[in-house]
Every structure is written in structure tokens, then in C-alpha cells.
């Protein structure tokens, strides 16, 4: 079929460009929100996923590591190690603290004190320097380093004690804060009372059933609660879902409505200014179905142009955000692209409602002069 839809739509290129930009911004809004949400969601599970443990043990009632606080006696280490199926137990400290950098900067960090000999809970990706901090050393996140001018050999202070930056880690950003890693012994008694820990990371023996070990721990120690790695990771991510999803859905809806409005206005204008021609098509034998296809094609074309514009605007915006607000971690996936593609098609379908109603009412006889 001669492309009446494309010809009519592209006839006014300025209008198409402006509309594609409008739809593009709506798509960008949806994508950036999705990228932010998925970024936060992913980050919320990275620490536990990369901990190397099979079970997380915390104070009873504490179900996640993000906004709950657990404190347990250190001597629980031996008790847990005695549970059948446990290979080793590592006590860690995980607390939000202020780092003192120079004289004036006091960035907050999630400080993790861990026992390097157990091979659990440390930084999992190192960009520079050492993965395992030695005595008096600290590994800081790359964003923390960049924002505060830290590099290998820089000095930071925590609770009056000095640490030298020995490593720069990646993937250890958590929203507005970043992880920092030191040896357990370095901060024992500094950020928690002496002989206490926040969590115990349990590694089960080869061949042992982690669920069985979890059940045994929960049964034997009423004051503690053990989670599998999947459970604690999911719990952490549920914190993000609970916080962000309602806001996100609202903003998605706004972005979607903006897209529908822009496409709708463009297609409606393109349809109405050619209404006489649609009357001609009806008169010569075109049914409403054919006219609907023309209008729908225009809407889909508009949406696809908007999608392309949206992807370009998103790429530019994401790059700008990465530079200006590095802690805002955007995580893009093929699913999101598929989602905005489907959203754009949905926008097209809804945007044609009004033009199609008008087209259906066009009387083919109206294009003749009355005699």
C-alpha cells in the first residue's frame, strides 16, 4: 500500500521532530527511572551475593542488612562453628560511620570489618591496590575516592583512628553511601562494643545441606536468625522495592501519559488536517478499518521515532549523570528496552483513540459540494 501514513506524518518535519523529542523525553524518563530502580535493586544485593557465605546469621528480628541493625556477642562464633554441617564462621562488623578526610570532609560510609583469613565479606572487585587490607589499611569505593580526592596512600580517620588507603574497589556503591573495608580487629571496640559482631557469615561443609544447617541454627539459638544467601539478598532487595516501587509506578504512569498525549496530539493534528482526504478515501471505497490502519501506522511511526530519540536522549543523560552524580548507579537491561518498546506501542494504540473516533464519523458525502 502506498504509504499514506508516512507521507502525511512526515509532511511537516518540524512538527515530527518536536513530537519525537517530546515522546523521547517521556521514554527517557521511563528508562532513567527503570535504570535507577534496577541499579538500586542490583546494588542492594551485591554485598550479600559476593560475600562468599552460605548463611547470614544476625540478631533475631533483623531481616535485612540495609536498614536493620544487628548486634551479637562474638563468642557465638564457636557455638555456631559447633553446629553440624558448619565448615567455618566469620564474624563481621557492618556499620554506617563518618570517615574523616582532610580537615573538613566527613563522608558517610558503610564500614565492613571482616576477618581476611576466612575469605568472606571483603571487596569483590578491586580496581587498584590490595583486595585484603593489612593492619591500619582500608579499601574504599572508587566513587568515594573520586568524590573525596582519595587515592592509594591517602589517609582517612575513623573514630580518631587513622587508616591508609590500600585499595580502591568497584561495585561497592550503595545509593548515596559506599562500602569501605578494614580488618575486623582494626575496628573491634571502635564502632561497636568490644567482643561483639553485627553478623556471622557461615560457610557450610562440602556436601552439607545449607537449609538443614539454617534450621539447626534457628532451632539451637533462639536469639539469632539465620538466612540463606538468597533470603537475605531478597530481603535487602525487597527494601528497595518497598521504598521505590510505588513512586516509580507513579512516575512511569506520568511518563506514559506524556507519551500518549504527545503522540495523540501529533496524530490527531495530522489526521484532522487531512480529514477531507480521509473523506475522499472513504468515498472511493476505503472502509474504516483501512483508515484505522493508516492512523495506527502514523502513531506507531511516531512512537518508534520517539523511541529512537528517547534511547539517544537516555544515553546522553546517563552519561551526564555518570559524570555529575556518580553515586546514582543506572543499570540498563534488554528487558527495559523491550519494556519501553512495548510502552511506546501501548502509547500509540491509546493515542489513536480520539483520531479514530473522529475518522469513523467522517461522512464520505461531505467531500462533495452540496447541490
Amino acid at each position, binding site marked *: 500500500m*502506498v504509504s499514506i501514513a508516512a507521507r502525511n506524518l512526515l509532511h511537516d518535519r518540524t512538527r515530527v521532530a518536536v513530537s519525537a523529542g517530546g515522546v523521547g523525553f517521556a521514554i527517557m524518563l521511563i528508562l532513567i527511572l527503570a535504570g535507577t530502580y534496577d541499579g538500586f535493586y542490583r546494588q542492594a544485593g551485591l554485598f550479600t551475593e559476593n560475600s562468599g557465605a552460605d548463611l547470614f546469621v544476625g540478631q533475631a528480628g533483623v531481616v535485612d542488612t540495609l536498614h536493620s541493625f544487628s548486634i551479637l556477642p562474638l563468642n557465638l562464633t564457636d557455638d555456631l562453628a559447633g553446629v553440624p554441617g558448619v565448615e567455618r564462621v566469620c564474624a563481621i562488623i557492618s556499620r554506617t560511620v563518618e570517615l574523616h578526610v582532610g580537615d573538613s570532609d566527613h563522608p558517610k560510609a558503610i564500614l565492613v570489618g571482616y576477618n581476611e583469613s576466612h575469605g568472606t565479606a571483603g571487596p569483590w572487585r578491586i580496581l587498584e591496590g590490595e583486595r585484603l587490607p593489612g593492619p591500619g589499611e582500608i579499601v574504599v569505593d572508587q566513587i568515594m575516592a573520586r568524590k573525596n580526592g582519595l587515592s592509594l596512600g591517602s589517609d582517612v580517620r575513623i573514630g580518631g583512628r587513622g587508616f591508609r588507603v590500600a585499595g580502591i574497589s568497584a561495585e561497592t556503591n550503595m545509593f548515596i553511601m559506599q562500602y569501605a573495608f578494614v580488618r575486623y580487629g582494626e575496628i573491634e571496640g571502635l564502632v561497636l562494643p568490644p567482643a561483639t559482631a553485627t553478623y556471622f557469615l557461615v560457610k557450610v561443609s562440602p556436601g552439607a545441606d545449607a537449609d538443614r544447617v539454617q534450621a539447626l541454627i534457628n532451632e539451637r539459638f533462639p536469639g539469632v536468625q539465620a538466612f540463606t544467601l538468597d533470603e537475605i539478598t531478597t530481603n535487602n532487595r525487597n527494601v528497595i522495592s518497598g521504598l521505590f516501587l510505588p513512586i516509580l509506578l507513579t512516575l512511569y504512569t506520568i511518563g506514559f501519559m506524556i507519551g500518549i498525549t504527545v503522540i495523540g496530539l501529533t496524530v490527531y493534528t495530522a489526521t484532522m488536517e487531512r480529514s477531507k482526504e480521509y473523506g475522499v*478515501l472513504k468515498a*472511493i471505497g476505503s472502509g474504516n478499518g483501512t483508515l484505522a490502519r493508516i492512523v495506527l501506522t502514523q502513531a506507531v511511526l511516531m512512537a518508534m521515532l520517539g523511541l529512537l530519540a528517547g534511547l539517544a536522549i537516555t544515553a546522553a543523560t546517563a552519561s551526564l549523570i555518570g559524570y555529575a552524580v556518580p553515586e546514582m548507579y543506572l543499570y540498563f537491561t534488554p528487558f527495559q528496552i523491550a519494556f519501553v518498546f512495548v510502552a511506546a506501542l501501548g502509547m500509540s494504540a491509546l493515542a489513536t483513540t480520539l483520531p479514530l473516533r473522529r475518522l469513523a464519523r467522517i461522512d464520505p458525502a461531505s467531500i462533495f459540494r452540496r447541490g
Partner: protein
Amino acid sequence: MDALRAEGIEKVYAEGDAEVRAVDGASITLKAGEVTLIMGPSGSGKTTLLFLLGGLLRPTRGHVWVNGDDLAALSERKLPRVRIRNFGFVFQDFNLLANLTARENVQVPMELARVPTAMAADRAGKLLTRLELGSRLDFLPEKLSGGEKQRVSIARALANRPRVLLADEPTANLDSKLGKEVAELLRRAASRTGAAVLMVSHDARIVDAADRLLLMEDGRLQAMT
């Protein structure tokens, strides 16, 4: 052979409490290859009659038969298909699709009738060439003169080899010379394709092109010759 037969058709409009009888019991038979011209003053109902014969309006009473179908009895869904198969329309102000070339304008009705695009383009090219528009195939309507536009419009009307070609004031926007040329073109089209041509017009200069002349007055149709 009868290309179209209408019997006792009436169109009554309500205007407030009053009834307006736009077409009052008109009967007409259009024969293949014959040119019929309906003349009459403005408001006499001749364009309404054209709508009724072309299936663009439904009669209040009466029947219009084309190719075995009674247009008055067909559903709204089936009417477009019957129109595209049986009718060609020529409009007073050409009504070409502004963003399509001359060739594409002629292709449109063929493609609506499900003729494959390549074949439709080829046929449109040949049709326009026959109407001496071979050098204007890829011109947009805005680049064509009034006479050329009307010839494209006639080519579009002939595209699906219709049984009936309905022309509403086809010469109204053309000067005298071009008007006569267009009327003669319709006359030749009727002879060559066997289509029944019905023109409604005020233009007395084109009566020579008609085989039969009818007068429409106050909704009633009567023979003049």
C-alpha cells in the same frame, strides 16, 4: 446492458418539524458505455441523487441495483467494498491526496481493491500516460495545473475499471477549453471502457459530450432530450 438501475428512490431529511424531500421518487437506468448528464439549479437535489446512486447515502425509500447488489439493503461494512469494485468518482475540486504523486493517487483505489502494489503502479503509469500525463507521473498535485489534476482524478476514477463513473461538476473549476476537454475525456472513457458515466453539472458547455440529458428540479428527475 444496464450498469446501474435505480427505482423510486427518495431521500427525505427532517428540518425541525418539516420534511425536506431532496430526491422525490427518482428512477434511472445507466447503460454501459453511455454518458448521462443531469442538469438543474442549485438545491435541486442532483448531488444528493449522485450520493444515493453511488452508495454514499442511503435512500429513505427505493432501490439502487449495481452488479446484483441493492445498495439500499447493504450493510455499512459491505458498502465500501461494493463502491471500490463498481464505482469511480470524479470530484468538482479534484480531491487528490496532496502528499502522494499523480501515479500514487491513481494506485490508491487499486490497492484498496487489493491489486498488488507493483501491478497497481504499472497500471497507474499506463493509465496516466494514456491521458497524456506520462511526464507528470511523479509530480505532487501542487505541481500540476487544474486540467492535469482533473485528468489524474479521472485516471483514479477509472483505475479499477468501474461499471459506473460518477462525476460531480467535473468542469466547474476549469476554464471553458479545459472543461470541454475533460467532458470529452469522460465521453471517450465511456466508449473505451464501457463504463456508464453520470455527470451532474450546471455547465451547459458540456452537453455535447452527453448521450442523454436529464433535468433535476425540486427533487424530481425528468428527461430533456
